[in-house]
């Protein structure tokens, strides 16, 4: 082994390995140098402005009111609690938005594939209209042009004497905890355990004998019957509190403030347009041969869809779908434009202005979003590995 090819001995700038080392050392020096430079500047600037850095400010009392808080809050509470409220509000918008956008997006995506010309074109118009208008513009439109121009509570639009839409938002009945709550929850839990046992038994019987079992209907039955028994025996889990018009506003019930309504509506409509396209391309990606193969095996249309088409379409749909969910979560920060108290407008807006702790506040806000997106992409990678086609 005396004449090894390549890799000349000694130090030479033409040696790719030496160059690689050199490049990396330069990169590290530049990055570290830049970081130190910025850090140094920041330190001097902070000293000159008399700002003390650190996270002590989180303990201080906030002293301002918040339009919507999911947990108890008074003006004397700390900034840390304000942060939690902002985070919860962000999650609330994301949660509602994800559910509604998925439903709407799937309906419109399927409609775009409909053989019915009219439905097909309507869905296309929807998608092309809403995905080409900036989401912030849609939010401002719903807020300033729709909800704020609605009549006041006295002239509100009334739906079945339960839901009232006015410029104060959407008032609806509130579900309050009643005596039957705990038995009901336990009954639901029992139902889920029963479904698990049933599915296991049905799968085993199918493996052994090949006799199928209607798992879906049986499961649905269990889920309805067991909690219904609990309601019959222990009474209703909730009692409803209706909103009532007293004076100039509603009393009782739950209220969705107009900011929340505008934000969820706009984000739902905007994201649904993208989800529709994802669903459409997912379904189209399953070749027609799959349908024909399933039919020639003797599967009927229903099982063909459930067992052949949908599992393959989902493999294409789910990765971009999660990135749309992530976009929705990030777009919820656009609420800063209408003052809905979520993470960015509440924490990076009001708290930053009050305390002046720019670096800490922005760092906290950004790390929350980073944490959300990193955890979702880790979940996604895990899922992708699980469903990836195992090729021969």
């Amino acid at each position: 082994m005396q004449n090894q090819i390549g890799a000349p001995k000694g130090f030479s700038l033409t040696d790719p390995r030496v160059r690689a080392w050199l490049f990396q050392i330069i990169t590290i020096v530049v990055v570290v140098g830049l970081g130190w430079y910025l850090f140094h500047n920041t330190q001097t600037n902070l000293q000159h402005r008399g700002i003390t850095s650190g996270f002590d400010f989180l303990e201080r009392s906030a002293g301002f009111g918040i339009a919507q808080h999911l947990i108890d809050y008074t003006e004397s509470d700390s900034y840390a609690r304000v942060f939690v409220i902002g985070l919860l509000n962000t999650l609330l918008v994301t949660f509602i938005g994800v559910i509604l956008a998925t439903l709407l997006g799937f309906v419109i995506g399927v409609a775009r594939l409909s053989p019915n010309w009219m439905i097909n074109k309507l869905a296309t118009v929807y998608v092309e209209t809403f995905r080409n208008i900036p989401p912030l513009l849609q939010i401002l439109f719903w807020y300033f042009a729709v909800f704020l121009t609605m009549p006041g509570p006295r002239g509100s639009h009334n739906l079945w004497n339960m839901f009232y839409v006015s410029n104060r938002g959407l008032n609806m009945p509130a579900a309050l905890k009643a005596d039957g709550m705990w038995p009901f929850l336990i009954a639901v839990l029992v139902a889920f355990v029963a479904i698990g046992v049933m599915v296991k038994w049905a799968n085993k019987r199918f493996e052994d004998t090949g006799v199928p079992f209607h798992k879906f209907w049986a499961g649905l039955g269990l889920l309805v019957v067991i909690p219904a028994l609990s309601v019959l025996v222990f009474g209703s889990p909730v009692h409803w509190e209706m909103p009532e018009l007293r004076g100039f506003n509603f009393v009782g019930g739950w209220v969705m403030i107009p900011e929340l309504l505008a934000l969820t509506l706009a984000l739902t409509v905007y994201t649904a347009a993208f989800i529709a396209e994802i669903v459409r391309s997912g379904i189209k990606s399953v070749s027609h041969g799959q349908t024909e193969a399933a039919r020639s095996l003797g599967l009927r249309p229903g099982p063909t869809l459930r067992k052949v088409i949908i599992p393959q379409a989902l493999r294409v749909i789910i990765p971009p779908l999660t990135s749309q969910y992530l976009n929705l979560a990030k777009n919820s920060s656009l609420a800063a434009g209408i003052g809905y108290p979520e993470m960015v407008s509440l924490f990076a807006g009001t708290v930053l202005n009050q305390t002046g702790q720019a670096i800490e506040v922005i760092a906290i806000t950004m790390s929350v979003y980073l944490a959300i997106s990193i955890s979702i992409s880790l979940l996604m990678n895990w899922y992708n590995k699980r469903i990836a086609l195992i090729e021969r």
Partner: protein
Amino acid sequence: MTTSHVFKPNMPPPNMAVGPVAWMRTNLFSSWFNTLLTLLALYLIYLIVPPLLSWAFLDANWVGTTREDCTKAGACWVFIEQRFGQFMYGYYPPQLRWRVDLTVWLAVLGAAPLFIPRIPRKVVYGLSFLVVYPIVAFILLRGGFFGLENVATSQWGGLMLTLVIATVGIAGALPLGILLALGRRSKMPAVKVVCVTFIEFWRGVPLITVLFMSSVMLPLFLPEGMSFDKLLRALIGVIMFQSAYVAEVVRGGLQAIPKGQYEAASAMGLGYWRSMGLVILPQALKLVIPGIVNTLIALFKDTSLVIIIGLFDLLNSVKQAAADPKWLGMATEGYVFAAVVFWIFCFSMSRYSVHLERKLDTGHKR
């Protein structure tokens, strides 16, 4: 004895097989379910379209100068007519607005040859255009040279500002994004880690927080006494943010190039930069042009976010004009106008991207 057979002329196909009736039977009323859907769709159209038409056109007010001239029930387009200058140019001095127009015309005229196929020396022309035009545009818009009056960037606004942010954003993000994409696929761990961290960081946070950061934190990062104007700070934020997305698009293109191309370039004795510049990137960039147009569309929509840091782009101009006490209640007209403008830009870009995708779809499918 000869008999001649004379064929009768063909009968026209039955009404049920061709023509509008047959079309409707197959496309609208093929089953009871489809019929139901068609009726539902017709009902939806009936609910939406006539009121919209009468609001926007039939009952709309087109002429006048003040709010009082809007007497009919429909939209008051007088508001848009009166504020059109502000929506397009912001607070750019009216007597100097020809400079903005000239900049736009120069862009259109200068870029036109690039879209004509078979023009000689297209690459050389394109590159020199890319170098010369930004300088000319900067001088024209900002002034301060050659006797042109200086217009501070705080006076820029409206659609013009939207276009400035979008074009500068994408022009700055492209080179940075390409470098990042190359770095991400590098075999050197230190370079790779730096690039991956950079890309994932910017992709993980919303643009709003980036803009907040560039407006409140950038001044802290810079040495004492050095300060940028607001627009430049926003542009830096936008370029950083956008470069991460461009990098991911370009990476897709780099991954799509078959390994044989890399090996062939090495076999020719080309070093890293030359094999990238002469062999890999020309092919990869061609593949990702539609993807880059898509990021440009996203960027164009995202420019509206500068409202948060108080720049007066198209959306903010509309928002401000709608809050004017002289024009109270004009929010709907204003936002509809802004939506139409944004829609025209985004829709035509997306059509162009689809067109490019079809045109460039050659060679790589075997």
